[in-house]
């Protein structure tokens, strides 16, 4: 744990510095009130990197993985996350992928639900009852996601598109990324399809090109300070669609998996650096 903390601090410091540099580079001189506001925010973000409360979710998640739970009273230690039963290290960096036992492409959260249902005997309803925590109403999936993703910290993103369904998921996700709908005509691309843009003072990564996708995808899940909660990638998609004025994205739906496949694959080649901490 000590080693991982030091490594994560270094990674976080590098990410923070790079983010800070990127922010500085984005603004030409003369835009003074702008630059100083954005720089101060970058400094605040860098200061936040130490003491990430995501650690608390990781600790809980590790316990949940190892504890005997559910009607079948077994732990998740035999769950196959794509690298073999019980292999957690590096698993997240290769997800989403096709799983033969379900013949579906699955992201982490979908796979965790699968193991909770098939191995621990939870019903689908119980396993997905609380995907996102709220204060004392905690989410087990969130904690498990925090720990499993932490076990991929520093691992280079390597989403392979070998199976036909994996390739198709990527292509579907790409189409969905450009799907314009709702009363505001928003698509993911409306905010995330161009480089160098921001909403208010929040920089927007361009998720269709490597640098933006890498920066964004490798920093989720994250402790959102403004929420006081650890938020997963399923949450991020869900909350984007809410702000796009769409109806509610179903947890672990096919669309969420396809979009995750598209975005995760675009991030290939970058070291995974989460759970991170964000505003």
């Amino acid at each position, binding site marked *: 744990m000590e080693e991982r903390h030091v490594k994560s601090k270094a990674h976080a410091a590098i990410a923070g510095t790079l983010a800070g540099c990127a922010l500085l580079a984005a603004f030409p001189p003369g835009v003074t*009130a*702008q630059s100083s*506001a954005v720089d101060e925010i970058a400094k605040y973000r860098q200061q936040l990197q130490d003491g990430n409360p995501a650690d608390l979710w990781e600790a809980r998640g590790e316990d949940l993985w190892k504890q005997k739970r559910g009607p079948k009273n077994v732990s998740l230690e035999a769950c196959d996350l794509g690298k073999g039963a019980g292999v957690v290290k590096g698993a997240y960096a290769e997800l989403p992928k096709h799983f*033969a*036992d379900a*013949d579906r492409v699955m992201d982490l959260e979908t796979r965790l639900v699968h193991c909770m249902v098939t191995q621990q005997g939870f019903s689908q309803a119980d396993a997905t009852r609380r995907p996102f925590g709220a204060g004392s109403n905690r989410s087990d999936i969130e904690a498990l996601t925090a720990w499993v993703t932490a076990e991929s910290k520093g691992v280079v993103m390597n989403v392979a598109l070998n*199976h*036909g*369904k994996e*390739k*198709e998921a990527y*292509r*579907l996700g790409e*189409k*969905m990324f*450009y*799907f*314009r*709908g*709702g*009363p*505001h*005509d*928003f*698509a993911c*691309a*409306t*905010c995330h*399809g*161009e480089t*160098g*843009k*921001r*909403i*208010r*003072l929040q920089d*927007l990564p361009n998720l*269709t090109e490597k640098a933006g996708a890498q920066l964004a995808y490798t920093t989720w899940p994250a402790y959102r300070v403004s929420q006081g909660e650890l938020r997963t990638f399923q949450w991020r998609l869900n909350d984007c*669609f*809410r*702000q796009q*004025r*769409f*109806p*509610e*994205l*179903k947890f672990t*739906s*096919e*669309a*969420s998996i*396809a979009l995750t496949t598209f975005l995760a694959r675009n991030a290939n080649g970058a070291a995974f650096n989460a759970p991170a901490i964000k505003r």
Partner: protein
Amino acid sequence: MKPTPSLLLACLCIASGCATLNDAEVAQKAVTVMKASFNERGQAKLDRLDQDDAQKLCSIPPSARLPKDVTDGIEKANLATIKYPADGKLLGNWKEGEKVAQSGIGKQYSDDPKVPAGANCYACHQLTKAEISFGTIGPSLYNFGKVRGYSEAIQRYAYGKIYNSQAYSACSNMPRFGHKGILTEQQIKDVTALLMDPDSPVNK
């Protein structure tokens, strides 16, 4: 591990290189999968996923270029939707307009449908000098009236642009505030005043 029938089929497919979906088929399937992946919640019903013509045509990467006859068609159709105020007065109160520009609520399933929506202009645009927290998805609107002049023609353009941005720019990222019922007529007048009233801080 015993091969299931679907696994066998998948293996056969890969082995024999059976045809993958072409681009149009993927696009079609993406829409079907999208629609099946959402639940209605609050004021956000599933019909929000039914795309109108502009949305269907504009579901493309920013780099993709639609042919001119298609973009002309989109602009013409959207221009026809613009409803100007019956009394012919296009300028409302810029102070109210600033409130509308600052407000980012409205139409989300987490929003109370009884509370008026904002336009969230500052999410994407610079407007007044004083507000430094502005986005850059759209161009700066600072000095909008000052630069273009305060004529009635420009008032009509500003009002029309807020009412339906795609009347002037097919596939614009900007929401069609009037046509989609996001803002009321009074709110659009107030935002037009924010841009076009010589006393508005936007023009100072």
